[in-house]
């Protein structure tokens, strides 16, 4: 049912946590809803050069959603915002070998990335 990669990221997720939302160089995306059984919060910290320096996540959802968010935060680090927007859920699903019924968990991660970037741009007045 679960790939080894999902299991590993579930047991030892990377970048769990949150940044202080008040800081201007932070962007926060929150997607999903408790009623649907999944909420993903993803945050990026962007440096002066416009590069994502660090990322954090928290997830209420299944193991695949947790693993997707963790993987997304890893992939985000070192990317520009434009590069980050190119991360597609399909790549996450493929990397984690998600079965079809779990693909929507990776969609959440893509949506959360988008949400975080939009939020950051809004804060910087560039969005």
């Amino acid at each position, binding site marked *: 049912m679960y790939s080894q990669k999902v299991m590993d990221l579930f047991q030892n997720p990377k970048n769990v946590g949150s940044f202080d939302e008040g800081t201007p160089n932070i962007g926060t995306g929150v997607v999903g809803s*408790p*009623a649907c059984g999944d909420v993903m919060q993803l945050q990026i910290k962007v440096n002066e050069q416009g590069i994502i320096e660090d990322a954090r996540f928290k*997830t*209420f*959802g*299944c*193991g695949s959603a*947790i693993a997707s968010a963790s993987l997304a935060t890893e992939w985000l680090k070192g990317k520009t915002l434009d590069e980050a927007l190119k991360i597609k859920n399909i790549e996450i699903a493929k990397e984690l070998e998600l079965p079809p019924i779990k693909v*929507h968990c990776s969609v959440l991660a893509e949506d959360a990335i988008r949400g975080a970037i939009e939020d950051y741009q809004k804060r910087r007045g560039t969005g």
Partner: protein
Amino acid sequence: MKKFIYMDNHATTPVDPRVFEAMKPYFMEDFGNAASRTHVFGWRAAEAVKIAREQIARLINAEPDEIIFTSGATESDNLAIKGVAAAYAEKGNHIITCQTEHKAVLDSCKRLETQGCTVTYLPVGRDGRVDPAQLRAAITDRTILITIMFANNEIGTIHPIAEIGQIAKEHGILFHCDAVQALGKVPCDVQALGIDLLSISAHKMYGPKGIGALYVRRRKPRVKLVPIIDGGGHERGMRSGTLNVPGIVGLGKACDICREEMALESARLAALRDKLQNYLMTHLDEVYVNGSIEHRLPNCLNMSFAYVEGESLMMGLDDVAVSSGSACTSATLEPSYVLRALGVPVELAHSSIRFGLGRFNTEAEVDYVAEKMVGVVKRLREMSPLYEMAKRGVDLSTVDWGDHGHAQGGHGHSH
């Protein structure tokens, strides 16, 4: 090899070694067809079936000739409901059931609705029980059958069965009861409780899979059924098909063991269950028991662990088999309809875990699971955005969850 702990005994149970021993001769030595009346092979099989019928009847205080063998409780439920609807069609076409029944009952009723029957699906209270007054009010002069389960398979809640039996009797309506989860855990006397048809499944009581029975009352009143499987006229014409002799022997033995050991075993399981519940409630905040605490099977504990999702909880409990009412675990991606019927908020339905204790669970296992569960919940809460918001004092019910929210008609996983 890692050792796994099995705590999902409402889904199925392992076969008791004593049951397995009893079944063994009926595969290769005494393999006869119980309907072969002309030779010793048939006689031996028939004798074994006769004994099993007596064992089953004794557990529920029925007569042996009132036991009809089936392939399991799904078939028993289908036969009881469809069989009564067809046999009593001139008398009426109205059936009363309840929203938290097993799919075998609900979908049988739905099928009959397409064939001219009307069905009332009674709601349940926050404790998961039907209200006898609502049942009474639902009865019409067209009502032919009340079908309400003894105990629910997800929450273990026991319905007011004696009262329901009494109401059915007062109105001359038949009462079918799916007793799959209750048999062998709590006393179940069809005479005292006024039950006319009762569904039994062997694999929930330490017997083999693929064998079950339907109790069909023969006296006061004599219940008529139109069969759903036609053929050689076995089982008083109600269920054709060569009898599954090893399975039947296993079911009989399973019933016998339950009858003898139920009192002690249920007391032991209730004590273990309470220990588990108390440990979780004292070591974690915001955990809730689903269903009635008072009227509950001794082996069942269904709890919601706020802010963490059920499938991730089960993944954390990687060496323990339990189940969850979360949408993430279901093929339909909808949370448990049983928990929703109780009025459990959706997010808490997603956070539910059912622990189903059984004959072979030990106290050491319960202690291990209790401790492990607390660790998993704490770890996942540290990862949960909802827990963080709640700790910051955000009222989650006032948050606008945007596109993904419920605004789209409460359908889960719409993205």
